[in-house]
């Protein structure tokens, strides 16, 4: 029987909820970023992202993000490889995917930069008033 408690989405108004929202917002960007480095299969993407972020970021609904990106034509199958009794489907970025990532990165940096610099002023704002 499924563990319903583990599957419940964190609610908004909690730190876990915010974390999930951020993860959701950047999932596509992270998939595109990883595939820009080299073609990967789904499980590899998941493992690599966890490793490269020191376990801070883990993918949720990665397979749906891959499906979405494929539907939009941003990624495509790069080939299949048999490893033991496993069949791995590798994905790679398309030209449209490259362009999309090039659009996403500055937008992301602008947002994060603005928010970071604002948060760095915690307690220093409106001191004169």
């Amino acid at each position, binding site marked *: *029987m*499924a*563990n319903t408690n*583990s*599957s*419940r*989405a964190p609610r908004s108004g909690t730190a876990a909820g915010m974390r*999930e929202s951020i993860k*959701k917002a950047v999932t596509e960007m992270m998939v595109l970023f990883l595939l820009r480095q080299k073609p990967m299969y*789904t*499980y590899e993407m*998941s493992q690599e992202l966890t490793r490269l972020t020191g376990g801070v970021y*883990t*993918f*949720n*609904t*990665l*397979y*749906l*993000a891959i*499906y*979405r990106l494929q*539907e939009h034509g941003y990624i495509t199958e790069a080939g299949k490889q048999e490893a033991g*009794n*496993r*069949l791995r*489907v590798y994905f790679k970025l398309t030209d449209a995917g490259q362009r999309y990532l090039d659009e996403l990165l500055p937008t992301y940096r602008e947002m994060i930069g603005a928010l970071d610099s604002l948060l760095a002023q915690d307690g220093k704002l409106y001191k004169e008033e």
Partner: protein
Amino acid sequence: MYESEVKDYCRRAGSLLACSRAQRQQFDRLTRQSVQEYLQEVPGAPWPEVERTLGSPEEAASAFMESLPPDTAEHWAGAHKCRLRLAAAAVCLVFALLVGVIAFFVITKGVAIIEKETTIYYLDDNSSMPPLPDLE
């Protein structure tokens, strides 16, 4: 492996999907494929771990809806409303028919349908009576 868990997961997520049956089937197919791929890489992984990679049913449903054209949910909601109205009309019609039938029997105090068949034979002195029809 985990057939019943996957079925339950798809059922819970499916209840949150506002899309056509074909799109739901696509969601189920993607989910099963993802579980299969994960178990291929991590054989014997416990279900909660597998489910974590899928995301909660709510997250998965929301992520899947994002992959569909923006007017899908609206279109489906309209079609769903139309189907509900038709179903309500059908239920009302059946109910009205039942009420009508009950009212008929109440007003007529019950009706017994009797089928009666009469055969008259005119017999003269020279003729013999034909065999009686088998009424059974």
